[in-house]
């Protein structure tokens, strides 16, 4: 079989009008997609764009609310994973679906055993794995326990699982997220190899470099919709970055030029390693001065979350962090409290998971993290709930939170109003440094403008602001300086007036840019 997409041939996969909602969230909206056999098709998009949901539907893990699926030209409901497996679809999930204490062989045969007893199945799988290893360079010790394997090896087991089930279509969801560059290169060789044997591959990623390196065709998803499908050879990383991020109503901020003062935040050689042992921050150094906004641009998952986490005190790291010259203890046990005491305010990326207690009332959330403040206490024993309520009501009015009712639980506010509560809480303290992640994610247009104005006002009042956002518009319109993060490092720094989306997009893809 030939590798290139042919005009007359039957598509391996055809999706028509797929929609899927989780409660009020429309994860996929009227999506159509055609993938030809023997090709590698990339799907790019931001976190939450709906890529994983779409592929989970294709694998029968979720059921679509509407739409049609054709596999090899045949309509197929794909009611469950078993049906997907029968249709020749294999999936390598972002979070591996392996049984950790099991051996490689046991994981491979799980669900496709030959009979009631394991011995014959294991023997057959052992032979099959040996052949697959030779055919596709997929060498794994069949008797190794999964929990003893590194992430690269685990992924190989997932691919072997799919191939053992005789998958002709292989879906990989963010396969390189946990891999080292060398492991990623090896994976790509395997994928090329599979393609040359006639397999169809769908690669979900947000890394543009991977799309450019390996795919034949590419689709771009944004906010649950498919916005473009292109021949990879005919496009560029810059164009893809723009498509991914999308062009929003450009909000021109009326802002004065920055008047940076003393250095507030000085970070040197900051490193963070996650529980999987992957180094997520690889020696980041940066500084932010009073009265300026440093924007951190980058595709999600390149270490921005870890940067916010260490600075905000939710993650441990190594290196030095100084606030107004005083070094912060990165190993402190009550990190969240000592960061606040040092003058750091933190608007976290995920307000529903970290920034707010969703069952708490608005007034309870308005002091979250600052509940030890003297202003919150009536006497040594009790908190002054009446005063906190009054303060909350007043702040809700000033930040235009709707409805301005301090006695509603956080979950009953819209995303924008939830964010205003968090912002009011963090800004009103006049912090020396505000670190803020994705300030307008899931926020309606009107609230976006309001939030941006508040950030500028805080800057003009002399605070230092570190802004992390995946929205390039936001970075460009708010920042006084822009640093681009890629793969746990700062790729380079730009001034907003000397750069554009294309330039930043390339750096975000790790393609260009001088190390800072």
């Amino acid at each position: 079989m030939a590798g290139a997409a042919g005009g007359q041939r039957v598509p391996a996969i055809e999706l028509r009008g797929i929609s899927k909602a989780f409660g009020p969230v429309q994860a996929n909206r009227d999506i159509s997609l055609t993938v030809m056999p023997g090709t590698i098709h990339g799907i790019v998009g931001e976190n939450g764009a709906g890529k994983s949901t779409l592929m989970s539907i294709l694998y029968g893990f979720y059921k679509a609310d509407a739409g049609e699926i054709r596999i090899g030209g045949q309509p197929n409901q794909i009611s469950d994973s078993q049906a997907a497996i029968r249709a020749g679809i294999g999936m390598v999930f972002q979070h591996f679906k392996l049984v950790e204490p099991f051996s490689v062989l046991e994981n491979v045969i799980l669900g496709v055993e030959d009979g009631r007893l394991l011995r014959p199945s294991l023997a057959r799988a052992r032979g099959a794995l040996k052949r697959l290893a030779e055919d596709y360079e997929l060498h794994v010790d069949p008797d190794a326990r999964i929990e003893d394997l590194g992430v690269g090896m685990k992924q190989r087991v997932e691919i072997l699982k799919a191939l053992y089930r005789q998958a002709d279509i292989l879906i990989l969801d963010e396969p390189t997220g946990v891999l080292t560059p060398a492991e990623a290169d090896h994976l790509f060789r395997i994928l090329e190899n599979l393609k040359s044997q006639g397999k169809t591959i769908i690669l979900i990623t947000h890394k543009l470099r991977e799309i450019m390196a390996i795919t034949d065709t590419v689709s771009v998803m944004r906010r649950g919709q498919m916005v473009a499908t292109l021949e990879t050879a005919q496009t560029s990383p810059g164009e893809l970055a723009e498509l991914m991020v999308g062009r929003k109503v450009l909000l021109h901020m009326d802002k004065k030029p920055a008047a940076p003062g003393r250095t507030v935040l000085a970070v040197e050689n900051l490193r963070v390693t996650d529980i999987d042992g992957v180094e997520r921050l690889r020696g980041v150094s940066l500084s932010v001065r009073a009265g300026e906004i440093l924007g951190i641009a980058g595709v999600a998952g390149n270490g921005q979350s870890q940067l916010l986490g260490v600075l905000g005190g939710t993650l441990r790291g190594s290196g030095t962090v100084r606030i107004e010259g005083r070094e912060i203890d990165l190993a402190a046990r009550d990190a969240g409290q000592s960061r606040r005491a040092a003058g750091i305010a933190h608007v976290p990326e995920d307000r529903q998971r970290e920034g707010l207690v969703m069952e708490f009332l608005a007034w309870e959330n308005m002091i979250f993290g600052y509940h030890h403040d003297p202003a919150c206490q009536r006497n040594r024993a009790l908190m002054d709930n009446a005063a906190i309520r009054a303060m909350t009501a007043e702040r809700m009015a000033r930040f235009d939170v709707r409805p301005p009712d301090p006695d509603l639980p956080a979950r009953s506010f819209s995303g924008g109003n939830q964010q205003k509560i968090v912002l009011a809480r963090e800004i009103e303290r006049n912090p020396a440094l505000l670190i803020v992640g994705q300030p307008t994610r899931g926020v309606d247009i009107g609230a976006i403008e309001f939030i941006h104005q508040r950030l500028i006002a805080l800057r003009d009042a002399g605070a230092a602001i570190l802004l992390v956002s995946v929205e390039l518009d936001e970075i460009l319109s708010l920042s006084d300086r822009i640093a681009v993060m890629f793969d746990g490092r700062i790729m380079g720094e730009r001034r907003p007036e000397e750069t554009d989306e294309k330039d930043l997009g390339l750096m975000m893809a790790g393609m260009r840019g001088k190390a800072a």
Partner: protein
Amino acid sequence: MRDAMPKWADLVLIPLVSLVLAFGLSALVILAIGEDPVAAVRMMVSGALGSTYAWGYTLYYATNFIFTGLAVAVAFQARLFNIGGEGQAMLGGLGVALICLSLPWPHWALALPAAALGAALFGAAWAAVPAWLQATRGSHIVITTIMFNFIAAAVLNYLLVNVMRPIGSMDPATAKFPSGTHLPSLHDLLAPFGIAFSRAAPANITFLIAIAACVLVWLIVWRTRLGYEIRAYGQSEPAAIYAGIRPVRIVMAAMLISGALAGLMAVNNVMGEAERLVLNAVEGAGFIGIAVALMGRSHPFGVFLAALLFGFLYQGGAELALWTDIPRELIVVIQALVILFTGALDNMVRMPLERLFLALRRGRA
């Protein structure tokens, strides 16, 4: 995003429906054993509420259940399941006995605070080890507290048989407490107001302490920084860490308070009623606390109401056993059904109700 159900439905309707299901099944059990449920209820009402003697027993049991219910409820606020109330209450009894027997107390007013302190300290200490193991080593607190119940039983058995038993006594129990530790009963408390209350009933001043404990727990959980942090941790651990709340501290604090509350029950049953420490003094009240906390939705006021209900069931059940062929264990069945429906099968009640409310709202829109 709007809730599927209004708040009153969540707080009142669901427990009520669960309760109706539990009682309905209990009525079927009574029917199945050939008795008349209506007559049984009538007898329970008169036996538990029909006289001051009956009230005295009902309130005595309710006092026990308030303490153990609060103990489970406080731990629930931090999303911890303290199933060790039984053992913590046993140790509380040991604390009470040691204090009552160690000094020649001149008056109950002096002995009471000391004994309460002893009960709380011993109960908290018995909760401390499982709490510490959960907080620092991740040992499942449900299993460790169960184990600690049995260890407590063995410890008390040893102490009562080998150490604290008076010479010459065959009974595995301590000596009678001196009269300076005898707590005033409701009869003694109400007599000055001209209210006649049964002299024989065991309800005593501890009932007032239990009410005070409800208020105190409410204050701690909803009015102090610690309570704020406990609730935040119980709702979302990532958010708690973001706010600089230390999980180890919260787990320890919540469990120590919980253990102290369970221990305080001993003031009622050991000091107020038996006036000596006997084997198996707790009689399952620690476990009833689970049903009480589940039914009371982990709120002190709810716990108070649920404890009264269970006090009623216990006294009424005892009367039933006395006058009919329905054994006392029927109450255990009711208790099991309450735990089952309000705890484990919550979704079975909740899901159809949510659907109903959604349909109603759509119908109105």
